[in-house]
């Protein structure tokens, strides 16, 4: 740990002794996890069901707060932010992709994608331009006025990725992004994520899929009962 200051600037994520206990008395869902993720890195988080992967991701995303420990993301300490400040932080600095897409079914594809940009302060016109670019990049711009309920799983996940990227977040988080997709579609989404990383996107990926993790992630982190068990080979980004 010679260049501590330099590391701070390079690290998009920094966890210091993070513990999350949902109910007093119950074993923690995440226990004393410390880890760093550097800018431009792809890290896969693996582990058995109930080992705390989603919990860890939610803590990094600012969707939840740790019981103990510090969470620093994109250079900001977020474990002590207010709800409102956390919401603003989420809107600007992280993009999240979920297993079940979490699209708003009563909004068009375009509105789904541009909403976070509007939340981050873009005008509707600016947000539409940006959404159009991203939908084109995901290969689904012809669906921009459709409603998500009429699209396939793979297409919906592309909408969700476009939505997560609309504010060009420092960090992209994905919780089992291929979990609800068939193998072929899952691989397409995997390739898309790898391409994003090649373009410089920092990415943390929770997955059950060992193949996906090995093929696309430079580093793998194992969680067992909420604790870091083992880190895979670290390849410089």
């Amino acid at each position, binding site marked *: 740990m010679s260049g501590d200051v330099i590391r701070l600037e390079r690290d998009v994520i920094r966890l210091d002794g993070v513990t999350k206990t949902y109910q007093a008395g119950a074993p923690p869902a995440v226990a004393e996890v410390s880890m760093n993720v550097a800018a431009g890195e792809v890290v896969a988080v693996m582990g058995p069901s109930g080992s705390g992967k989603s919990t860890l991701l939610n803590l990094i995303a600012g*969707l939840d707060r740790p019981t103990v420990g510090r969470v620093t993301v994109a250079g900001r300490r977020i474990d002590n932010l207010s*709800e409102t400040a956390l919401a603003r932080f989420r809107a*600007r600095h992280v993009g999240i992709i979920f297993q079940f897409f979490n699209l*708003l079914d009563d909004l068009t594809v375009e509105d789904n994608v541009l*909403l976070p940009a*509007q939340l981050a*302060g873009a005008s509707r016109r600016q947000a539409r331009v940006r959404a159009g670019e991203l939908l084109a990049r995901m290969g689904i711009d012809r669906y921009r006025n459709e409603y998500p309920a009429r699209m396939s799983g793979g297409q919906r996940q592309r909408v969700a990725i476009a939505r997560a990227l609309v*504010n*060009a977040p420092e960090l992209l988080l994905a919780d089992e992004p291929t979990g609800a997709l068939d193998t072929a579609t899952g691989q397409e989404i995997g390739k898309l994520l790898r391409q994003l990383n090649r373009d410089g996107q920092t990415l943390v990926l929770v997955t059950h899929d060992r193949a996906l993790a090995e093929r696309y992630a430079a580093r793998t982190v194992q969680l067992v009962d909420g604790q870091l068990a083992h880190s895979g080979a670290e390849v410089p980004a």
Partner: protein
Amino acid sequence: MNRPDVNWPDVNWPRAIARWLAAIRTATGGLRRHKLQAIVIGMVLLVSTASATLGLALLAANNAPFQHAFSAQHGAHVAVTVNTARARPAALAATTGLHGVTAAAGPFGTATVPTQLGGQAFGQLTLAGRASPGGPVDDVVLSAGHWPDCPGQVVLDGPANPGQGGPQTGGTLTIRGVRGSPALTIVGFANSVTNTADGWVTPGEVTRLQGLGAPAGAQMLYRFASAGSFAQIRADVTEVSGALPTGAVTGAASWLSAENASTGNGAIMEPFVVAFALIGLIMAVLIVGNVVSGAVVASYYRIGVLKSLGLTPAQVMVAYLGRIGWPALAGCLAGVVAGNFLAIPVLSDSASVYGVGRQQVPWWASVLAPAGMLALTALTALAALGPALRAGRLSAVQAIAAGRAPRTGRGYAAHRIAARLRLPRPVGIGLAAPFARPARTAVSLAAIAFGATAVIFAFGLNSSLGRAAQSQTHSATVPVQIQQNGPARAR
């Protein structure tokens, strides 16, 4: 950094607010896709607001209109009938200076005569001679036509158009029992809150009728410093008759009897009216609370997603209130308007039941509209605010989870018991489901119970009230006739 360059430029605050709102508009943009929900919320609020407004109207109408009219008209605490042969006008005038008297009017000559209307007997009427309806005591309210300005004209006490076969403006009232059976033209209708007379003519007309053989008499109208009970009124009347020669006072009518007579019908209705009003109000609150909190629960998943995208708690609240709020507000406003329209006939009915003239209706109607509106808007806002606040505080992760699958564990015991009853599976699930949300189930049950009570009430009320009113009318007419005939027979 190789992060693509997307930085939304900072703008001045009016534009920042515009963008804040634009984001919320996008987030709620699905309103058009939720027409049914909007219509249901709007209709529920319309109906419950209308019934609550009607309830408020009934409560308001029931709120002592006699007292209101009595003080507005400076009603007479006591109307004293005097024998003018024994009491000189100067002696009568002297009574106005008595210790307990705060205001007095008269003497007004009276003629108590049998009458006919359109060839039919119209009963014995006491006609008082007054040059004008106003005065310091018993400020009579003219509800139609004009005050008699020459002999041969009469204004009758009562509602303006009592209906088929009743007296009408321009009709002719024939005076019987006096020489020549003179005819009087009905020129208007008026109301005296304490019913000091059955009709009013010019003072000259009274003198003429007395000259033709009508029993002579006069009335003095008093207000006293203390006249709250029958005992106090007895003392007041004793003081007046003590100041006059013996036998001068032939009768005295107190305002308390008038109050009893005029609120008689209202007294029967009062508990029903209050019950209806309360049912309306309680149902409105229950239903609004239930619908709004139901809408929150239904949108848990959505709220969770919006939060995960970065909507702040305040934005979630505004977005949520916007979505529920517009149809709710529209329903509320329409309900207040509808409630007021429904209330107008009820109010005018109640005003005529109380026999206190028409001046009540515009007064209440004008107060009711804004008051009802305010009360119900506040009510709805309160009912909606709780769930909206909860929506704002909800954790995104939990909201998404709760929205996707119903919470497990809740009502689990009930489900297990239902399963053991060997009922068909759907019945078992249906029986146990309410236990998963006991509070909402209780609220729904209460609303249904109140609704059923109201319906039963409405059916029962009609017949029983009709019967009760009938018996009231019979018992009420008897003392009136005795009072009118008593003094004439005695002297």
